[in-house]
């Protein structure tokens, strides 16, 4: 069974601070995605990383895919209250079309 370990599970920070969320596995994935979910809504895709060592930036968010395609990180610079939400990493085992989700990180950014 392929698992994704996401950490930390809870994070409460002040506006303006930086943070990093980690997503680790012992298995190799064809791609990794990061989603953000707000209460009462479904997850919304933020980014997909497909190449080992890849780095993608989305405004204040930086996503990395590990060289071995087993881990990923999400770094947020100068967090804002609007970043509050549940962040989920998800990986696709090769050739399945399915997604396996990490446990999720609940982020609270206080003004």
């Amino acid at each position, binding site marked *: *069974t392929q698992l994704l370990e*996401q950490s930390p599970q809870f994070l409460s920070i002040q506006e303006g601070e930086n943070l990093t969320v980690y997503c680790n596995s012992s298995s190799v994935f*064809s*791609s990794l*995605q990061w*989603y953000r979910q707000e209460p*009462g*809504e*479904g*997850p*919304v*895709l933020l980014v*997909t990383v*497909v190449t080992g060592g890849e780095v993608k930036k989305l405004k204040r968010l930086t996503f990395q895919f590990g060289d071995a395609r087993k881990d990923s990180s999400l770094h947020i610079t100068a967090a804002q209250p609007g970043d509050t939400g*549940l962040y*989920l990493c*998800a990986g*696709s085992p090769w050739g399945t*079309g*399915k*997604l*396996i*989700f*990490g*446990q*999720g990180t*609940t982020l609270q950014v206080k003004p």
Partner: protein
Amino acid sequence: SAVISQKPSRDICQRGTSLTIQCQVDSQVTMMFWYRQQPGQSLTLIATANQGSEATYESGFVIDKFPISRPNLTFSTLTVSNMSPEDSSIYLCSVDRGIDEQYFGPGTRLTVT
């Protein structure tokens, strides 16, 4: 992009009854997925539904408890049968958008009393 709607958005049901959740997509898609999510927690895949074939269930989920229909390329239903309080959860459908990415519906919040 795909627009996905789910009905009902929420429901409160008595134990022993069944609820059918509908998922409608505004475009034709090959693969549809059903997930379960406890509030504030992660998603667990229940099954994959392809049009014209039986749904494929993940370990721990069985067809008798969660029957799924996929009558065409834009619609699917998930039934939660013989419900117990442990079935209280958010149920989400999603569709494959390519490159292993998925679009998600808004979810159905189910409470079983």
